[in-house]
């Protein structure tokens, strides 16, 4: 088991008391692809970040169990965590415009990631970076190595991000809305690339998104989150048989070309869902 989360809670101390953003999330994943969907603010990012212990400093984590590949994340010291981050689990953020360092060349950023966990000389690392950029299907990788992030498109930036996170051969890739900031035309391309690389390398994938059909297309299983809870976990093929009214609601809200509706329904929420 790569990831084993049992009853994860993330809370923030605020002026008016504590605010619980993640309220008892549980799931397990091996070398498979799990999608996490849910509306904005449902706690998807915090769940993913908790797994790498990359939460904001004012956040508090609690869990009955929070294991990564046998390591207890809650008890691990910072050194152990640094061995997990990057090396065992890669983390792709939403917008390459902000998640790549603007004053460092792309080549250096990818090389740094490789060298951090594999050692070797600067020259070797740069060669490895060129090879990695080639693997994420960037044409003319040698030229791109010398570019700065602002000089490449969003799609290219996200390819760089993927190359950087795959550099140390991690066992798990966490992607937090990796295509939300991209043009619709490149979204599928990037997802397919990621899926392809993950399958080829036999890795696990956690793909966070708010696009339920898209996620179900690329993942084996889907966890639907709402207000800090996992409402329902389904295998991707059985979305149509979703039981939970929230999941049904999400599916219902999609515009469809084959069965057009005069007006999209409004998503209903029920406080009773959070009781169980």
């Amino acid at each position, binding site marked *: 088991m790569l990831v084993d989360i049992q009853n994860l809670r993330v809370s923030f101390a605020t002026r008016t008391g504590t605010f619980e953003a993640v309220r008892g999330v549980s799931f397990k994943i091996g070398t498979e692809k799990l999608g996490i969907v849910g509306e904005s603010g449902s706690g998807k990012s915090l769940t993913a970040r908790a797994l*790498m212990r*990359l939460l904001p400093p004012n956040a508090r984590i609690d869990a009955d169990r929070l294991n990564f590949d046998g390591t207890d994340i809650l008890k691990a010291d910072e050194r152990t965590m*640094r061995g997990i*981050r990057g090396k065992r689990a890669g983390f792709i*953020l939403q917008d390459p415009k*902000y998640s790549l*360092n603007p004053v460092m060349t792309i080549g250096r950023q990818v090389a740094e990631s490789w060298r951090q966990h594999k050692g070797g000389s600067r020259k070797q690392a740069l060669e490895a970076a060129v090879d990695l950029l080639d693997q994420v299907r960037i044409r003319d990788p040698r030229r791109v190595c010398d570019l700065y992030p602002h000089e490449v498109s969003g799609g290219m930036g996200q390819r760089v991000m993927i190359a950087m996170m795959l550099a140390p051969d991690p066992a798990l890739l966490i992607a937090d809305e990796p295509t939300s900031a991209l043009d619709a035309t490149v979204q599928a391309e990037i997802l397919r690339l990621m899926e392809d690389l993950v399958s080829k390398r036999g890795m696990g994938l956690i793909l966070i998104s708010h696009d339920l059909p898209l996620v179900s297309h690329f993942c084996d299983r889907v966890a639907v989150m709402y207000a800090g809870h996992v409402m329902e976990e389904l295998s991707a093929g059985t979305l149509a048989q979703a039981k939970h009214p929230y999941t049904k609601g999400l599916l219902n809200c999609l515009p469809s070309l084959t069965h057009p509706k005069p007006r999209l329904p409004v998503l209903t929420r029920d406080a009773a869902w959070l009781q169980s």
Partner: protein
Amino acid sequence: MTKRLNALAGLLASVGLTLLGLVIITFLIGRVMPIDPIIAAVGDNAPQEVVERARLEMGLDQPILMQFFHYVVQLLHGDLGRSILTKNPVISDIARYFPATLELATAAVIVAAIIGIPLGVWAAVRQGTWIDQTIRVVCLAGHSVPVFVLALISLLVFYAALGIAPGPGRQDIVFQDMVPHITGVLTIDSIIAGDWDALWDALAHMVQPVCILAYFSMAYITRMTRAFMLDALRGEYVITARAKGLSPFSVIWIHAFPNVGVQLVTVLALTYAGLLEGAVVTETVFSWPGLGQYLTVSLMNADMNPVMGATLLVGLVYVGLNLLADAVYRQLDPRVR
């Protein structure tokens, strides 16, 4: 290529305009001040005909535009007029006083940056902890205690009571005029002359005024560095860097810090320019013969040529440092290249 040429032309035009503005302002300072330059030159009790002769000699009977034209022509010949007080050409006075200020300001800004930048980074990284608080109090003191208080206390303790610091001035009497005057910067001149005793003496005299000036500049640099770093540390690329498994040191110094370089350069340039104006109070307490003292004494004696000359120099320093800062941050930030 044409883009570069255009940029260069734009730069030259803006520098040209700035310089013209500077010269106009300096000129106006000399004319608009409620000081009669003739009386300042010939004295209160001069007979009417002497006053009249001086007026003609100084060209003050001509229209103002003509006067301005003459002033510019004079400047282009490197002539800043003569000081009534010292009887020397202003340009040679400045050549004597400015190196003293340059030496003090350069040392102070280097010390301030070396201490202030890491302190600011540290405060930002430890935001809200007792380390941050302590650094803040230290900086607050730097801002709020008047210079002369610190300077006097320093002289009292280290010179008068403990006797471990040299007294006021740039040199001990024994070293006066011992090393040949080449740059006017005593430390450099001593090194050129190979006179290590003189060098040691010059350095010893610098310690107190440099520390006091550096303390004030450091307070500012630390505060700004902290603010810039807090902003940089909130960046998404910092999360990326941490997600790569980098050490805190790399995350802070290799990823976050280079992103504040541009803003820091501006702060350092402004701090340095401020110091190069000459710190009147510090220079006075330590009897440091610098530009600040020269400017103040001239102003108080209504000696306008030195005032105009020194003002022009300070303006030039600002223009020069701005250009330098511009060039440096073109190097630091790929986005503005």
